[in-house]
């Protein structure tokens, strides 16, 4: 049971390039989340999904897109990378809605630098 896995671990992009951050969970969780963590700023929610085929915007969705074709995978797409997207990105999952105080499991993160 690997939990939540993310690839790549590190990436450097040039301004205007695009990329997909991969996230996979093997716990059969319905809910999945993408966060970004900037230095000294805590984690901010980008997008989340309550199940396959259903996604919704979080607090900071601009410049990102997501899809959820399967329960296991929740990729995050950056179409036109900008320096403001330099951050550490975390994927997470929960079995139930967080309002029920469920445990959120985080992946190890992807450190993205846009130059």
């Amino acid at each position, binding site marked *: 049971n690997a939990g939540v896995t993310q690839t790549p671990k590190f990436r450097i992009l040039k301004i205007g390039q695009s990329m997909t951050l991969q996230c996979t969970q093997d716990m059969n969780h319905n809910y999945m989340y993408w966060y970004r963590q900037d230095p000294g*700023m*805590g*984690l901010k929610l980008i997008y*989340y999904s309550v199940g396959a085929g259903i996604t919704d915007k979080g607090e900071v969705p601009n410049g990102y897109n997501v899809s959820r074709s399967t329960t296991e995978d929740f990729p995050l797409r950056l179409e036109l990378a900008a320096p403001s997207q330099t951050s550490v990105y975390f994927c997470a999952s929960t079995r139930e809605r*967080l*309002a*029920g105080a469920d445990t959120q499991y985080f*992946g*190890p*993160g992807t450190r993205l630098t846009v130059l």
Partner: protein
Amino acid sequence: TQLLEQSPQFLSIQEGENLTVYCNSSSVFSSLQWYRQEPGEGPVLLVTVVTGGEVKKLKRLTFQFGDARKDSSLHITAAQPGDTGLYLCAGVSVGGSQGNLIFGKGTKLSVKP
């Protein structure tokens, strides 16, 4: 905008000392969680508190949820170097954010041997 304010932002202490980290808000939360994050890794859940006034203990760590469910504290007794890390509080506010977590900015703790 619902905010969770954590204090202090940085804390550097000697092994064996006690410390308290605070998490405050003007909003009411249905639940509040504390995470610890080590460099290069994702946050790991330490505890969830859901009832006003609730106190939970995890070995040398004591977590308290305020009576009004607007604040929380984390107290560490006899800190050890292994306690070093970033401590994050996160809450699910009542009636907001579709049940998503709001995170504080974190307290970076360094425990020196």
